[in-house]
């Protein structure tokens, strides 16, 4: 394992990959700080570009964008009471009061340190557990894969913003959209209505760009601009000794919570940060301090957030099952590069796997450096009005979609999904389950087909096989546990709406 990791560092420390890491982490920081554009939109927008890049570098960059955005969302939460990323909503509760009391510096510093600590532990978790998981999953057959994929889709629907009654049909719609095109087994054209463009199905990038990119632009323009008021200047950056003493235990607790919750399909950084906040508040000696500027309310959730964003990669890298919408997009990106994520990834493509793991640690180090000293610059970038940003986003989206197949029909489809996406935003239906259903649909159907073939049409096969039955129980527990507690984590209706409007994971 040590030799694998050192090989990974060899891969990650080439000039080219270091550059990709820096670009990704930097871009992610930018995107995490700026409201109005999130990591999923960015990844969807840049996907067409990555097809021309080497696979390892492309993935390093996309991964950097993802965890970079989660790292930096707390900056605006603290300074402006505005979460740059939905996962940073919790940081507003105690981070902003700290800034208002003139303690912005320590808050930002503790947030950055917590993130770095959590990132290191997260990378360690991947290093230790991913190969183990890959070995276990070699015992997986079609029934196990089918159940796992179903679990991923259902869990994402359960933990998405908005009610389950709206998220479930989104997931089903995604699965249905995945059936469009030529059925591989029979050659039947499904839902193509004679239109040749649809013969190969609708590329997930088109739908992602429409639902996440274009719809978000319309929604942001509709909302109009808000007042951007910065809470005080950032003077003393260093936290005091009592700060550090109060923070180290929440950091560890948050990291542990985030590492575990991030692996489970459907959860991820959002739930982790809320869970950590609730935990810290519950075990604090003086819970009344929370909401007024308790540093535990920053250290814990920030660690949970970042740890989860790293371990979020594990199911996708080891099993080929994306744990959320962002991972689904990256799964798609890898597939197009000719790499099939799954148990074989660790052994077939050790360069990619260990290189990415090593670069995650390097990326976290870069972020520690980027976030603190350059805070002044990042804050000033917030002043860039949205009206400069969104035309650029639109242009990249259009050209990117066109470049998929040099087909303008794809761009028109994206426009259609943009309109649909806006309807979904207005109805408070989260698009994340749809993307998951879309990406996993074909594989789910294939595994289901094989399962039924092997079992002779007997659906009980899912319960008679031990691993499959265990996964089913886990799915039921996950959803059963989550539904009532999500009502608690959901926070105020305003927070829920903010999360639905921003791009949920």
């Amino acid at each position, binding site marked *: 394992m040590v030799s694998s990791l050192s090989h990974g560092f060899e891969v990650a420390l080439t000039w080219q990959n270091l550059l990709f890491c820096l670009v990704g982490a930097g871009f992610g920081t930018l995107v995490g700080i700026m409201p109005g554009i999130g990591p999923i939109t960015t990844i969807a927008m840049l996907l067409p570009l990555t097809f021309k890049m080497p696979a390892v570098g492309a993935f390093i960059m996309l991964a950097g964008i993802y965890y970079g955005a989660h790292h930096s969302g707390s900056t605006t939460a603290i300074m402006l009471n505005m979460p740059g990323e939905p996962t940073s909503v919790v940081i507003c509760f105690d981070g902003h009061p700290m800034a208002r009391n003139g303690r912005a510096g320590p808050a930002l510093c503790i947030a950055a340190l917590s993130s770095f600590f959590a990132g290191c532990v997260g990378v360690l978790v991947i290093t230790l557990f991913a190969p183990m998981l890959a070995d276990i999953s070699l015992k997986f057959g079609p029934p196990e894969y089918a159940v796992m994929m179903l679990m991923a889709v259902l869990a994402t629907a359960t933990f998405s913003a908005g009610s389950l009654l709206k998220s479930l049909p989104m997931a089903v719609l995604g*699965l*249905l959209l995945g059936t469009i095109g030529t059925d591989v*087994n029979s050659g039947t054209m499904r839902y193509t209505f004679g239109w040749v463009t649809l013969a190969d199905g609708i590329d997930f990038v088109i739908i992602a760009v429409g639902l996440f990119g274009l719809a978000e*632009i319309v929604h942001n323009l*509709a909302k109009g601009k808000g007042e951007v008021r910065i809470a005080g200047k950032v003077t003393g950056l260093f936290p005091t000794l009592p700060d550090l003493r109060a923070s180290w235990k929440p950091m560890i607790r948050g990291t542990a919570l985030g590492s575990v919750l991030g692996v489970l399909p459907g959860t991820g950084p959002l739930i982790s940060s809320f869970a950590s906040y609730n935990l810290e508040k519950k075990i604090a000696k003086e819970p009344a301090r929370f909401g007024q500027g308790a540093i535990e309310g920053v250290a814990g959730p920030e660690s949970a957030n970042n740890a989860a964003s790293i371990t979020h990669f594990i199911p996708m890298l080891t099993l080929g099952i994306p744990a959320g919408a962002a991972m689904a997009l990256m799964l798609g990106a890898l597939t197009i590069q000719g790499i099939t994520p799954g148990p074989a990834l660790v052994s077939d493509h050790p360069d990619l796997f260990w290189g990415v793991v090593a670069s995650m640690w390097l990326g976290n180090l870069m972020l520690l450096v980027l976030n603190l000293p350059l805070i002044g610059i990042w804050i000033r970038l917030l002043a860039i009005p949205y009206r400069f940003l969104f*035309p650029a986003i639109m242009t990249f989206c259009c050209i990117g979609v066109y470049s998929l197949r040099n087909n303008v029909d794809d761009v028109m489809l994206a426009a259609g999904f943009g309109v649909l996406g*806006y309807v979904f935003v*207005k109805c408070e239906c989260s698009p994340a389950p749809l993307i998951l259903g879309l990406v996993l649909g074909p594989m789910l159907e294939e595994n289901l087909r094989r399962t039924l073939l092997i*079992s002779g049409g007997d659906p009980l096969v899912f319960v008679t096989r031990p691993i499959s039955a265990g996964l089913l129980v886990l799915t039921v527990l996950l959803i059963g546990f989550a539904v009532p507690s999500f009502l608690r984590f959901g926070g105020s209706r305003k927070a829920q709406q903010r999360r639905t409007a921003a791009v949920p994971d």
Partner: protein
Amino acid sequence: MSSIIRDSKSVVCGALFAAIGAGAFIAALSYPFGSAQRMGPGFFPMMLSGLLALLGILNILRGMSVKTVGRVRFGRIAWRPLVWITIGVLGFAVVLPRLGLLVSVAFLIGCASLAQERFRVVEMLCIALALVLLSTVLFVYGLDLPLAELLPH
């Protein structure tokens, strides 16, 4: 009518889901269903579309349910950004093969500016110029889009 509908958002998305589900189900009837052991191409789509239609109806029912507290309105539809962004992207698709990348990006930015409440012409011209240059560099040299695509034929 408005007193029956308590939660407009649920009713609207429910109707959408039900409509798509029903349509997809009817279309899937023409694909071979197969048997339990050998799933045909129609198996999965029929199950999914049926489920979708059912969930859509449930949403409509919930939207009309007496138990819903208060009234949830659909809210104002932002027609201006919606229409202009859509026209922009569709127009891009129509213009690109006929008049090349430069004109289509310019058209896109034009529509983008119309999507806003207020815009300054000089600003938008600068943005258009910058984006045209940037996309040329990025996509023609980066992605090897054929150079002939740049200019009108």
